[in-house]
């Protein structure tokens, strides 16, 4: 059931429910003249609350529930609203480098000179700062990490992101559905299929349209291929950050084979632009299913050996077990999705808990662990690979015949939302369509919004040299949050 409420009392009430642990933050974003909040109630229902910003201000949700802080700061940067009582008034996405302020609000001019940023401090004898980024040492996205360390031990890590801000929300405004789908598929390239599915489902919800059964099944195959490709890559890369390159080499082969199977089946290695509102843009190639099933067979033959290698290598376990522990309570408070949440005991998966086709007709396990360390995040990934391989097989087995794309109503205003499980967690999409059928507002919330802040907590007390390991085990998206 979906409740849509509007007003100050409901706004505060939702904030208090989250603070008390009776509801979970899904997303918080700005729109014309109002702030919007989506929470997940204890019974799993989503509730939406609108807060009018008549005088350009609204009561801060972060003041009641800190996990909302970065989303709130981002909304204020884009719209120019004031969050009354906010615990952190610093700008987040806006580094002062744009020729304007408040790109979705008054668009007031700015000289682009760049703002100073006051990092939080840690003081004590022998403490020193280590600034890292935005340009990092590897092939990795840009972001700034400010460490305060006492010797080797990290006392405080503060992240500063926003370097990849491309203005996606503004580009979405007025975009045709076709262009908007292409943009949604490039919010975070590693999750392009999941984003395209989330956007398409939100649009279909807004228009009251439904994709054909074959399209749902093909979307499922794409989403699971994307999940295993990323999990293979991540498992290898985490081990590589502990200097165990052999795992990376082998996982890299499985990842490459997955991308090649995707390319032969759907014409693109990452399956970009394959999912569109109304269905899918490409049907599976005649030999596509056989190629994917061959991949499944190969993964089943070789992956267990790699898992045994991981499990039996003491020097590797020494680095991952007990490292970067994320407490279960924090994961629950933040509503951390995906591997990060599940490795700390948060038993949530949008595919099961907000079921959408094709998953509503499939049974699968949602693996969880309690330890919350790097090792647990690796094991959740390992177990998810197994589940995804089975899902792929089942979906291909019972692939329905028929059309792959339904015609959408040519015009029509409306609002729709979707919660779709990407490889790193739930992607929330909310779309508001204008009368002419173009996008009036599209908000896409990556799972990383609620995971990045937890990395700051998990790294505390670990040594600086373990940061890459911890960071990779979280694998937050920079682009997905910077938008």
């Amino acid at each position, binding site marked *: 059931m979906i409740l849509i409420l509007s007003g100050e009392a409901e706004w505060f009430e939702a904030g208090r429910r989250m603070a008390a642990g009776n509801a979970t933050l899904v997303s918080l974003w700005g729109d014309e003249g109002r702030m919007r909040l989506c929470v997940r109630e204890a019974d799993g229902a989503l509730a939406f609350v609108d807060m009018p910003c008549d005088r350009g201000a609204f009561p801060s949700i972060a003041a009641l529930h800190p996990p909302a802080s970065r989303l709130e700061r981002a909304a204020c940067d884009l719209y120019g609203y004031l969050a009354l009582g906010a615990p952190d008034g610093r700008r987040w996405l806006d*580094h002062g*480098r*744009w*020729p*304007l302020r408040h*790109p979705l609000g008054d668009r007031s001019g700015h000289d*682009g000179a*760049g703002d100073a940023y006051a990092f939080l401090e840690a003081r004590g004898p022998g403490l020193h700062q280590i600034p890292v980024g*935005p*340009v990092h*040492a*590897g*092939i*990795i*996205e*840009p972001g700034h990490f400010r460490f305060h360390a006492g010797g080797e031990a990290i006392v405080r890590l503060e992240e500063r992101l*926003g*370097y*990849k*801000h*491309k*203005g*996606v929300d*503004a*580009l979405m405004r007025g975009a045709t559905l076709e*262009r908007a789908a*292409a*943009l949604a598929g*490039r*919010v*975070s*390239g*590693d999750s*392009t299929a999941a984003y395209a599915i989330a956007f398409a489902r939100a649009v279909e919800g807004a228009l009251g349209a439904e994709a054909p059964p074959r399209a749902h099944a093909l979307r499922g195959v794409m989403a699971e291929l994307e999940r295993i490709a990323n999990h293979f*890559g991540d498992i290898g890369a985490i081990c590589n950050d502990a200097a165990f390159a*052999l795992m990376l*080499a*082998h996982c*890299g*082969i499985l*990842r*490459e084979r997955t*991308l090649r199977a995707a390319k032969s089946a759907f014409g693109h*290695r*990452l399956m*970009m632009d394959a999912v569109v509102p109304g269905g899918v843009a490409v049907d599976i190639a005649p030999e596509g299913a056989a190629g994917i099933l061959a991949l499944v067979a190969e993964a089943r033959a*070789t992956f267990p*050996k*790699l898992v*045994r*290698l991981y499990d039996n290598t003491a020097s590797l376990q020494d680095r991952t077990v007990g490292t970067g522990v994320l407490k279960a309570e924090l994961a629950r408070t933040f509503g951390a999705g995906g591997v990060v949440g599940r490795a700390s005991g948060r038993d949530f998966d949008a595919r099961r808990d907000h079921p959408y086709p094709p998953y509503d007709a499939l049974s699968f396990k949602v693996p969880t662990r309690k330890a919350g360390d790097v090792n647990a995040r690796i094991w959740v990934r390992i177990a998810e690979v197994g589940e995804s391989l089975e899902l792929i097989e089942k979906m291909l087995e019972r692939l329905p015949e028929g059309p792959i794309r339904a015609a959408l109503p040519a015009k029509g205003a409306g609002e729709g939302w979707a919660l779709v499980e990407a490889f790193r967690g739930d992607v929330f999409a909310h779309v508001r369509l204008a009368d002419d059928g173009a996008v009036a507002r599209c908000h896409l919330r990556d799972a990383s919004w609620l995971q990045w802040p937890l990395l700051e907590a998990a790294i505390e007390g670990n040594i600086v040299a373990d940061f890459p390991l911890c960071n990779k085990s979280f694998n937050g*998206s*920079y*682009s997905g949050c*910077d938008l």
Partner: protein
Amino acid sequence: MRDTLLQGLRPPLTETAPGADDPELAALAATVKEAADRTLGRSLAIRHVDAGSCNACELEIHALNNAFYDIERFGFRFVASPRHADVLLVTGPVTLNMREALERTYAATPAPKWVVACGACAADGGVFAGSYAVMNGVAGVVPVDLVIPGCPPSPAALMKGLLALMRGAKR
């Protein structure tokens, strides 16, 4: 187990080297300065700079190091510092928030140096062109020697582009 694992990495996984048969790429590579041959010998050190990509380009750049493409066999090496680099491989449309970081990375790279714009966004802004927050491509910030198109470019396209650059540089 050890044998099985090592066996898995042996040829014939590795792709054969692509030829320099693409006239467009060859022409682009020809613009690269001739002095490079003496300076660089047979190796190129690459520093990747993400200037606001969606991270798809990074995935395919990573793939260059897997057992199929194994780009180090051609003398390409990804290095951790611009001080060690001959080539800056830049992805993304160059966000205004990354502009200064890219300029400073370029300034920190010793000459002779080349800039490769990787992907549709780096070429001209791609789907993000026209946004208040981006520069519409790398060429608006630092001089570009080679553009490798694609969204994202496949590892094969990246390899072809980089080889063309090196052959051009060797001429």
